[in-house]
Each structure stands twice: as C-alpha cells, then as structure tokens.
C-alpha cells in the first residue's frame, strides 16, 4: 500500500533527521568541551595539591562529591522505572520515552563511578578497591552493582535499537557517510526474521526482569553506605526505600526536561505529544507523593522522640543553619510541585519543564542535606580544631569538579542522540499499523 509506504518514509525521516553533525551540535559540544576543560583544570589542581583544595576536612570528609554521587546514582534509576517496570506491565504510551529514559540511565550510571574517583586522594590506587576490597563492605557491593547496572542499561538501550539501526542502514541516504560503517556493524544483520525477533524479545524481557533488582540494589546499597552507621540522620531502617523513591523523583524530572528539549530541538512534536507530558506529570506526582510519605516518616519519627544526638541534627535542619535550604528543598522541590502538577494546566510541556527543573535542583540539594549536616555533628567532637573543620563550605575548585560530571552527562546524552534515533522507529511504526520491514506491502 502506497499510503503506508509514504507514512513510513515520513516517520523514518522525522525520527532520523537529527542524526547528523550540524552547526548547533558543534557549538553546543564546543561549549561543553571548554567548560569541561575548566573543570579538568580544577581537578588537575586537586591531583597536584591534594584533597585539601576541596572544603572537606576531618569532620565533613564526604562533601558535595559524595552527595553528587548519590544524586547521579539516583537519576540513573529512572531507566528501570520506565523501561522495566512500566514496560513489563505493558503500558503503551511510554514507547517514545523508553529510549530517552535509558539514555539518561546510561549517562548518569556511567559518570557516577567517575564522581567517586573525584573524592579519592590517590585515584591511581583505584584498582585496590577490587584487589583488597572486603566482601563485607557496602562499598564493594556498590562498585559491583553500579557496574552491573551500567552494563544492563547499555544492553537495554542497544537491544531495542537494533531494529531501528537495521531500518536506517537500509535507507543509507538518511545517514551521514561516516556513520554508515558503524550502523553496518551494529545492525547485526537484523532483518525482522521470527528467529531474530524471538531472541531479541526474550533477551529484552530477561534483562528487564533482572534490571529491577539490580536497580533497587544500586540505590539501596548506596543508602547503606550511610544507614550502616549509627550517626543521627543516617541511622534509619527506611533509608533504602527512602533513597529509591527519591531517585524516581529525580529521574522523572530528568526525563521530562530531556523530553522537552528533544521535542523542541529535534522537532518531535508529533511523537512526544502533550499527552506524554500529561502522563509523565502524573507519574512525577505519584513519585513525589511516595517520596513525601517517606520524608514525613524519616523526619517525624525521630523528631517525636528527639534523642539527644538526633535533636541536635534535626534542630539544625528545621530551624538552624540548614533551615533555609531544608525548607526550600522540601516545599519548593517537593510539596509545591505536587500541588501544581495536580492541575492539568501545569502538566503542559513548558510549565512541566520548569517544575521539573525545580524538582531536580531540589533533588540535588536534598542529597546535600542528607550527606553533609550529619557529619557536622559527630558523637565525639574533636577538640581544639580550627573553625573550618566544624562547618563545611565547598570551595570553588570543589564546585568546578562537581560540575564536571554534569557536563559529561550532557555530552553522553547529546552524542547518543546525535548518533541514534531518540524515538524508536520500529515500535512507533508497529503501533501505527505499519510493518517497518515490509512497508511497501
């Protein structure tokens, strides 16, 4: 049917026209590269002069490097929610969002490990973690699960893309010449045969199933790095689910922001529709409500008992030095977004994107509030220490080193989206009743 063929031609063109190197890409990547170089210079200073260039001292030895790590692991969890949980349940509207979510998962998980290295005074001893790592230590578990999750996410990004790669390989005129050999290799000779589909579908299904425990593990184990101590603010039995639910909040917001920018810069309005924003808005509200529920538990229960050490910590958060940040994060990054997103007017692309930015900024500072204030109140204060040991404030060098991972994430997302279609062509065609490999029939 000619009609189907033209529709398919248009669809393929719409979803692949961004795969090219244009001026915008070069300017954007150039900007990111320059910014990254500045941050790498800061890291060079730290390598040369030691961790003393950062604001971390004997009291607060886990500064924004560690809170940043928690944030990165959190943001990567969204891949599991969208492609594994919603995908296995059979939710249909997520089709155009799955690859965006997986790209975000891969980018954040890949960089999370690097964030940890920035906190190491002797990064050349990284291999010792594996050579001498204790199997009883949550740090070794964390290294293991983050690596596993990254590999699973890369596979879940790649396997559903094989069909798209094969489609575009056949329409070589749509691809830049330098990309064609890469597509030839990655297409794995896929031709939509039942045997090939059986293997791919079975693999995706298995990967989706093991992705769920793997994703829960990476963030639960990350929470255990804190919860396995007895310190106020960390000594909590609900830290695992508290972290996981917070992760979905950050991840949903990241996906919504990415949706907005891909939609407008790659002209995907016909594929990422207002409906998708509306649905993602509802998912975000649900996740925020779950996270709010955990927050109430996490703060109200110790606040009711006010054990001596907890009291010092909680007063600091509720009415002390961290109060402004605490209430901005809780109200501006959680409560207000919930209230606004209940109204459908706010679940439109632009308001949603702005709300998501507030949510993701709040999510970053929330990790700061989890990691840092606890360390400012040790059970056994060190005597006669300089004042800068007691109150943590990040230095400029430290802040630049913390920005670097964000630049890397943006680079990875940009490159993946410039090399491969952002929205699955094969699934979209199938949903619209077109056989992608037999569209002329």
């Amino acid at each position: 049917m000619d009609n189907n063929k033209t529709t398919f031609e248009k669809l393929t063109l719409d979803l692949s026209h961004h795969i090219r190197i244009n001026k915008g890409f070069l300017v954007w990547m150039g900007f990111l590269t320059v910014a990254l170089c500045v941050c790498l210079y800061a890291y060079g200073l730290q390598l040369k002069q030691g961790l003393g260039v950062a604001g971390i001292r004997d009291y607060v030895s886990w500064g924004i490097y560690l809170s940043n790590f928690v944030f990165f692991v959190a943001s990567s969890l969204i891949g599991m929610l969208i492609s594994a949980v919603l995908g296995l349940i059979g939710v249909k509207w997520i089709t155009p969002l799955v690859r965006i979510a997986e790209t975000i998962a891969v980018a954040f998980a890949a960089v999370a490990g690097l964030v940890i290295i920035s906190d190491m005074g002797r990064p050349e001893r990284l291999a010792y973690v594996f050579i001498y790592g204790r199997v009883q230590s949550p740090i070794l578990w964390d290294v293991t699960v983050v690596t596993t999750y990254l590999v699973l996410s890369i596979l879940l990004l790649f396997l559903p893309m094989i069909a798209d790669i094969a489609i575009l390989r056949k329409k070589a005129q749509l691809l830049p010449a330098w990309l064609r050999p890469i597509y030839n290799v990655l297409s794995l000779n896929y031709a939509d045969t039942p045997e090939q589909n059986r293997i791919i579908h079975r693999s995706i299904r298995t990967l989706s199933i093991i992705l769920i425990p793997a994703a829960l593990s990476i963030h639960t184990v990350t929470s255990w790095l804190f919860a396995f101590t007895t310190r106020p603010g960390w000594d909590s039995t609900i830290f695992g689910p508290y972290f996981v639910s917070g992760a979905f909040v950050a991840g949903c917001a990241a996906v919504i922001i990415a949706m907005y920018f891909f939609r407008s810069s790659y002209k995907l309005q016909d594929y990422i529709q207002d409906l998708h924003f509306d649905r993602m808005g509802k998912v975000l509200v649900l996740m925020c409500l779950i996270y709010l529920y955990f927050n109430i538990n996490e703060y109200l229960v110790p606040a009711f008992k006010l054990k001596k050490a907890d009291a010092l910590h909680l007063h600091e958060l509720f009415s002390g030095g961290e109060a402004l940040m605490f209430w901005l994060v809780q109200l501006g990054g959680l409560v207000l977004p919930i209230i606004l997103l209940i109204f459908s007017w706010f679940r439109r692309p632009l308001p949603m994107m702005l709300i998501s930015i507030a949510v993701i900024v709040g999510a970053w500072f929330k990790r700061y509030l989890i990691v840092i204030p606890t360390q400012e109140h040790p059970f056994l204060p060190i005597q006669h220490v300089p004042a800068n040991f007691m109150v943590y404030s990040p230095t400029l060098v430290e802040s630049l080193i913390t920005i670097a991972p964000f630049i890397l994430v943006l680079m990875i997302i940009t490159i993946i989206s410039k090399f491969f279609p952002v929205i699955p062509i094969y699934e979209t065609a199938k949903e619209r009743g077109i056989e992608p490999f037999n569209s002329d029939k």
Partner: protein
Amino acid sequence: MRFRNLLLFIFIICWASLMRTSAQQWVVPDDQKGKVAPFMFSPDLQKQGEGIYTKNCVSCHGMPGKDNWVKQLSPPPGDLAMVKAQKQSDGELFYRITTGKAPMPEFRNILSEDERWWVISFLRTFNPKYVQPNPAGKGVFTGKVVKLQMTYDSVQKKVKVFATELTKERTMVASEGIGIMLFVKRYFGNMQLGDPKTTGKQGLVLFDFPTDLPGDKEGKVELICRVNDASGSISSSPVTSTYAIGVPTNKPGLTETRAWWSTRDKAPVWIILAYTISVIVVWSIIISIVISVIGIRKLNRT
C-alpha cells in the same frame, strides 16, 4: 548559624575555664617535691626508661623533643622535653607519674617505683642542664628489708602472703605490721584485689580470691603482691606468680573469627556465598544474552 556559633562559643568558654581550674588543681604536695631517686641515673637505666616510655607514655606525649604529642587532649599532655616539664623537680615528676590525673592514668599499679624512676632518667636526657641530686638514703638505709613469699592455698581458696624481715643479726624472721597489697595483672595495668592488709604476728596475710575472675584458656592468672609503703622506710621487691585459679576463658579475639567487621579472608561465609552467587548468576545471564544477540547475525534468512 549565628545561634549555633554563639552556643559553640559559650561551650568553648565553659570548657576552657573548666580545664583551667582543673589544670591548676594538680598540686604536688611539698613533702613529695623533694623526693629523689634512690640510685644514680646511668645510660643503661635511661635505655630501660626509653623502653617503658615508648610502651606507656608515647601514645599521648609523643617522643620528647619531636612535638608530636596529641594536641586534641585536654589538658594538653605537652612535649616532655619542654621547659614546662623539665623545670619540675624529680619528685614532682615522680608524683605526677604515680598519681596521674584524668585523662592521664595513674601508674602507681602499672609501673614499679624503679620503673618510674627509669622513665624520669630517660626524660632527663633531653635536658642538658640537668644535674641529678644525690640519690636518697645513699649509704644509710635505716628502714626494714622485707622479703615476700606468695602461695595459693587450694583448700581454703585463699592467697597467702608471708613477709619476713632481715634482722640486725642477718637472719630472716616473720615480719609483723607490714601492709600488703595484692594485684592481678590485666591487659593494661594491674587490678587490686580487695583492700591492703597488714601482716599479723606470723607475718602472714590471707586474701580471698574471687570465684568469678576470668583467667586465660587454662584459667591462669598472674598475681602480684607488694608492700604498701608510703613512707619509703621499707625496702622490698614485688613478687609475681601465676596460678591456674581463674575461670578458664577461651574467648577468641573479636577479629579472630569470621565476622562482618573482620578482614576479607575472615568474611562470614553467608556474605561470600550471597555475593559470589549473585554476581555469577547475573553476569552469566548478561554474557549469555550478549552471545545470543551477537548470534542473530547468522539468522538473516526469512
């Protein structure tokens, strides 16, 4: 933030003033200040003293002259090569080592008198201007020379200490009215058992030995008895003996068995199994999927 700083300030002021008063209170009684060592310091003794110093003192005071004492302690222990320590008389140093003052432990029952003097002889090597005063009682010792013997009476379950003294006729006779203290050795220092007792006419004291005191694997405990002599008028040496009279205790050290907190080779078996099996299962699935997906290259025939 401002409120916290204020609280911190008040806390520091209170703490500092508290430390000031307590530091001032460590006064050495006048009659102790003049006390001098019973022997001349020699390089041999200084060497002995260095060994004792590195075992007992260096953890807080650091090595003298190196300024590596623990700055966080209050009151500050200080470097003992400094003028503040060296301007004190031997008697003052001896008194402070003997009595201690928190956080400094008292070494009364940890180091013998001679050992305490050896430490002082070592410390004085850091003071080139130091001239040792004439040793006490050199030549004329007018007090008693007492010898102790310790036995354990397994029938009465009591520790017996028998004191004899040297008479002018150079014979040993039972010594009456001698204060005796009994200690049991533990990891750090000695624990006193009961109160000091005074010998009767037969020169004998009996100490009850507690029934619940833990010993080593075979129940062995090391007992030390010594004369309780504050005036320095008795010359005697402590006596040490080991008896299998404690409760046999075979508790492995906290890091000797498999435990969550031990080294890697002492990890609990269940953690090793759970970790290894999970890693093997997940990674074999991943590898098998990668292999089968690469295999679709050859299935390109409809």
